Every structure is written in C-alpha cells, then in structure tokens.
C-alpha cells in the first residue's frame, strides 16, 4: 500500500492535477545530464551523447594508467581512434569537418566544449590532449585569413577526420613571460626571448617556449614570435612543422596532474619558416592570441567542470556503496546536503560555460568569467568530494584525488584566474566601469 510520503512525492501528487496542470510540471524521471542535454540543438545533443559514450568506453578503462604511469602510456592509439570517431574535427562543418551545422553557427567552439567536458569526466589529462589539439588549430581559424584557410586550416581539418590526424599544439608561453602574454598591461612590458628575423624567403626563428601542452606529441605548432626586437606589438603567429631543422623538444615538465598530456619546452635554433607559414598577417599575432584565449577559456571551464563532475560521480558511487552504521552514507542528511551543493555548483558552472558559448562571436568578459567561475567551482567541488570520502579520498584507485590534482591547473593556465579577472575589467573599463553614468 502506498504510504503518505509516497503520495506526497511530486510525481504522484501531480497525477491529481488537471491535464493542463500536469503539463505545466515536468516530473519525468530524468537525470540532470539528460535534462541539460535536452536543452541543446539536435546536433549538439548528438555530440554530447557520442562524447559521453566514447569517454566511458575508451577513456575510463585507461584513465588510471594514463595518469599514474603516464610515461609508459602511448596516447596515439586513443587519439587516432577518437579522430576516426570525429572527436578531433568539430571545429569545422562538413565536408571538411564533422561539426553539426546549426550549433556551429551559434558558436564555433561549443561542440568542442561539450567533448572537453565529457572526456574530462574520466580523465582531465586525456581531455587536455584533445583540447590542446583544438587550441593549436584555433589561430588558423581565428586569423580570418583566406590564404591561411586554403593553405593550412582546411587541409589540417580534413586530416583531423581521418585515422591519422596531424596533431597540433599552441605555443605562446616563454620562460620569462607567462601571464604577460595573456594580459595587455603586462604584455606591454613583457620580456620576450623568441624572435623571428626576416631572411630570404621567410624568417629565422630563435628562442624557446615552455609549458607547451602536447609539445612532444604534436606534429605541428602554431607559435608566436616577435619580429626582431620589436616587442609584443610585432608578435606574429607562425605555423611550424616538427620536422623543421633547428626545432627540438626540450625538457618535459613534471606536473601535479593532467599528466597524460605532456607540457614541453620547444627550442628554436635558427629555424627557417617560409613566408607561406605566417598565420594571418604579419604583426597580427597579439590580436590572434587574445582572440584564441577568448575562445579557449570557456573550453577550459568546460574541462574543469568535467573533472569536477567526474569527482562528483565517483563520490556518489562511493556514498551509495558505503555503509556507516546501518545506513548508507547516501542516506545521511549532511551527506545529501553536501551532494546537493556539489550539484548546484556544477550546474551553475555549466550554465556559465554554455552561456559564454552561446554567441557566434566570442565575448572576452563572458569567456574569462566562465573560465574563472568554472575552475574555482571545480576545485571547490573536488575538495567537497574528498570530504565525503574520508581516508579513501586520497587513494589513487578512486580517481577523486586525480580530479583534484587535474582541476587545480584550470585555475592557472589560459591566464591565471587573477589575470582573467583583470581581463573582465579591461574589457568593461571604458564602456562601463570608468565611464560616467549615462
């Protein structure tokens, strides 16, 4: 017999309403993931589902090994498999890419952000492998330069659909210029070491870049250098091939997390780069770089969100299976409150990320805000997950500590969260902050 408590639950109580009343309340038994997915265009829905499926089938089984034994983990078979499934080609619509057209016309990076979240649920480092590839491609797209499209972007996009994609990386950070190349005020005084000297037929590049995600495995790089000693204002983006004489990979950083994706030093010693490999126009580099960050920051937010969602899902499983006294952890009210808080935080972060991806042209303030909020939230959610698991939280086999290590990087790269906050101020300064009220 149905108890009073059962009768009072909304799905049962709603049955008493009139047809219109029932229609006005949605009590379908859907997960939050399903509900969020239903709000998307059909094409975006398709990619979200595909990415979830791929992530569970192919990333989950290797996530632990790829992190703890990352030096022995070969990432290429996984990347090739993902490429065959279209996961590396959603920055372009068919026939050259595989992005769904309608969501692409609303935002070029939204489908990549969806994949970034789903992959990062299982492994932040593997998520980065894929997103760093997109980041490497982004300057070619965002330069808005027809010759660049024809010579480089479209052929590379086409290759990204095949089983043997040309893997890309994006190189801006220099040993003495990290935040400086991500923020206008610092950029004006940046100490740059990577230079491009004009020569017959092109440029000779010298210097070095550090912390380059996928620097070791990428076959091509979009790399930024100043012309002579002219400073950041002369920054130009070049497309470099790993096979170019004088280009070598130096030190690989030992990172706290996101370890399946290497962070490498790129050393340039008299590397000849032909004119045709200039991305966009000469001295366009700073603007291209800033715009790449505008597009990539929400994706970083999506990845952080995914990492925290992974921590949440694994903790939820733990709370379902673990008994404290005669009750499951899940049945305690304080545990429920904490889980609810995690859901709220994740939901809010996803709303920010999806909102910032909701326009065709990127908005620097919305991008930075989404990245800051999602990454700070993700770290907070991971610490909450650890609280729920007690001593088990720090054990590698549960994957929650890995999510915490992974997600801490999101508060640092793509501009520290301090730099991103200042980017919002910079963007809103003239129009809103320092202007007289109208």
């Amino acid at each position: 017999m149905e108890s009073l408590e059962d009768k009072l639950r909304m799905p049962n109580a709603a049955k008493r309403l009139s047809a219109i009343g029932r229609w006005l309340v949605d009590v379908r038994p859907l997960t939050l993931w399903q509900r969020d997915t239903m709000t998307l265009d059909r094409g975006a829905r398709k990619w979200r589902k595909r990415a979830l499926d791929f992530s569970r089938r192919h990333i989950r089984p290797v996530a632990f090994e790829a992190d703890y034994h990352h030096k022995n983990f070969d990432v290429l078979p996984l990347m090739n498999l993902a490429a065959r499934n279209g996961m590396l080609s959603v920055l372009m619509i068919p026939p050259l890419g595989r992005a769904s057209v309608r969501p692409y016309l609303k935002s070029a990076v939204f489908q990549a952000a969806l994949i970034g979240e789903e992959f990062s649920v299982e492994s932040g480092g593997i998520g980065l492998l894929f997103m760093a590839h997109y980041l490497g491609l982004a300057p070619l797209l965002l330069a808005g330069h027809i010759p660049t499209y024809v010579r480089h972007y479209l052929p590379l996009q086409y290759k990204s659909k095949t089983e043997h994609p040309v893997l890309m990386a994006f190189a801006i950070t220099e040993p003495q210029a990290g935040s400086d190349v991500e923020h206008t005020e610092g950029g004006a005084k940046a100490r740059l070491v990577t230079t491009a000297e004009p020569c017959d037929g092109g440029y000779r590049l010298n210097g070095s870049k550090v912390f380059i995600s996928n620097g070791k495995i990428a076959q091509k790089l979009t790399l930024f250098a100043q012309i002579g000693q002219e400073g950041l204002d002369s920054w130009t983006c070049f497309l470099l091939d790993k096979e170019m004489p004088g280009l070598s990979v130096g030190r690989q950083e030992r990172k706290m997390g996101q370890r399946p994706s290497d962070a490498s030093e790129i050393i340039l010693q008299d590397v000849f780069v032909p004119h045709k490999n200039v991305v966009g126009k000469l001295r366009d580099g700073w603007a291209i770089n800033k715009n790449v960050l505008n597009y990539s920051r929400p994706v970083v937010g999506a990845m952080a969100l995914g990492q925290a969602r992974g921590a949440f899902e694994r903790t939820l499983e733990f709370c379902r299976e673990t008994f404290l006294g005669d009750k499951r952890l899940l049945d305690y009210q304080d545990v429920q409150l904490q889980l609810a808080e995690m859901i709220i935080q994740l939901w809010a972060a996803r709303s920010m990320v999806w909102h910032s991806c909701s326009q065709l042209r990127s908005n620097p303030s919305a991008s930075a805000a989404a990245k800051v909020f999602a990454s700070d939230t993700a770290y907070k959610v991971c610490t909450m997950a650890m609280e729920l698991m007690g001593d088990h939280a720090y054990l590698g086999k549960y994957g929650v500590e890995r999510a915490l290590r992974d997600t801490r990087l999101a508060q640092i790269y793509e501009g520290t969260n301090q730099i991103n906050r200042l980017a919002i101020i910079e963007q809103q300064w003239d129009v809103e902050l320092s202007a007289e009220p109208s």
Partner: protein
Amino acid sequence: MEEYTFSAEDIAEFRELAGRFSRQTIQPYLNSEFSDGDMSKIDGIISAGKQAGLWADRENSLGIWGTDHSHAALSLEMLSALASSCAGVAVLFHSNGLAQRIFYDGGGSSGLPLLCALQESERPPAARLFLSHNTTLKDEDPKGVLTRYFVPVPEKSGALITFTRRNGRIALVLFELNKSVLKEERVRERLGLRACPLSHFHIAANATGLTLSEEATDLLRKGWYMHWLGLSAIAVGIARGALKAAREYCRQRYQGGTVIRDHDAIQTLLVNAQTALYTAESMLQHNRTLSDISPAHLTQAAMTKLSVMELCASAVTDSLQTFGGYGYMEDFGMEKRLRDMNTLRTMSGSPLYLRRLIFELSEEL
C-alpha cells in the same frame, strides 16, 4: 617518570632545533628527481632524528610526543618545523611519537619500535567510543579477522598497539607483528604524504595479543587528541613553508616589467595566506595540555583540526597561485605541499566526520 616543565624560551629552542634539522637533514632528501623525495634516504633521516633527539623512544623521551613532558606545544612546534620542509617526514615522526607515548602511558615498557593503529575501522570512531564508560560495547568478533586501516608505518616495527573491545570495555592491546599479522596491505598510489608508508593490517583471529590496559578509554581519547593536534601542527608547517616559498618567489619573479610582489593581485594572495595561517596558529596554541584529556578537550582538538585544515588549505592554495604555472610543476615543491595538505585534510577524520563528532560530543557535555 620525571616530567619537565618548559618555558617559552625552552620551547623556542626546541623549535629552532627542529627547524635546523628540517633545513639541514630533510631538505637535502627532497633534492631528488621526484618532488616527494628520495625514499631510500628515509632510514637515514630517522637515524639522524634519533641522534638529534627528535625521534621519541626510550632514550629520547624529550622527542616529539616524548614521555617526559606533558606540554603539547613542544611537540606541536617541532612538528610544524619539520613539516615546513616535508609533511610526510613530519607524519613519520608524529606517528612514531604517538605510538611511543600511548604505549608508555598504557603501562608498556619494552622499548620496541612500535606502530599505533588508532583507527579500528575504515574511519575514526563514533562519539560513543570516546565516552564508553557509560556504554555497553559489543566485543570484537573473536572469530573474525581484526583489521586496522590506514596505519602509518614509520619504520620496520616488531609490534602494533591498538584499541579493541574486550569484556565490554576498550582495551589497549599489543600484537607482535610476525606472529599475529595475516597480511599487511600497503596503501600505494595516493595523493600525498608519500614519505610516510601507510598500511592496512589484517590480524589473525586467534592472535590474543598482550593486553596493556584493560580500561583504555582515556588513552583512546588522548591518542585521538594528540593525533588531531599533531596533524593540525603539520598543516600549519606546510602552510608556513608554502608562504615562505611564495614570498621568496615573488621577490624574484618578474612579470609586467616588475617583480610580481609589486602587483596588487599577488599582494592580496599573500595577505590572505598570511591571515589564514595566523588564525590557524592562534587556534592551535589554545591546545596545550597532555594530561587528563577529557571529552571537552577532545572536542576542542576536533574543532582545531576542522578549522586549521581549512585555513591552511586556503593558505597553501593561495601561495601556490602566486607561482603561476611553476606552482603546478614539481620543481618548486608547491604542488607537493598542496597534495600533502589535501591528504591531511581528509586523513583520520574528514570535515564531515569531525562536524558530526563535535556535535555528538558537545551534546554529551
């Protein structure tokens, strides 16, 4: 047993001793390929710790948690000093001292290297165990295997002491490891504190063990009291080390044409870290006694762990942030501090557990 009393100057001297040990002996251990240090050197650190008088045993009863003093500040200051270099090593010294102190306070006298397993299940005890004089306790199943989880293993030991329920009371029992242990299960891949090995011990059902104390509720309380304060002191040490490293880095690193210390954003991070650390230190200083640990003292220790961990975690993550990308790499030791800090935070009493315990104990008081 003679107990000494200590002045503030005495305590400062011990702190200085531990600080020197930290810089001169522990720091070189960390200069290896891995940020967690060279594990092969741990035995050497312990030997040096014994010579320096920091490692409590029969001969070094003034060491960390040594039996010749009843003033917690001495041990807490020394633990913080060690942890400012390496929290894992500090946990080694802490675990050893705790085992020795419980053993001797429980009436032991053998002078063996010891392990102490405070945790009788996969999580710390419920409040009623700390108040068991009013409660009928069910004996542990004599046919079942006695398992002790997350036991720190400071060095190769001959015996393990633990609390177990016998004749309806909490007893302190010593088990010889070679005879009693069915299996030692080493906890391997984990977030932090890797210098200190951790194991689960499965003890044979027929291992009777040597009962050191038949009524050990007071000792159980004292053990957890010392444990939570010790871990809190280690957290303070991590945060001190992190803040010091951040300050040094910020004086040297240039961005935007100036040292980053001159940037307001960096100053905010440093001040936030400093304030959190100061609050944590102040809270820790309130817990001084080692005699007659009551449920009220235990409640204070639980509140201390709860708050100090939050504050220190905040100080460490803010300090790390000043390093930018370098904070995430192993070279500067900041990522190790973050990992160690987050391990401590959930170790032997997560915030969720502590909140529940504080409520239940407070209801009884």
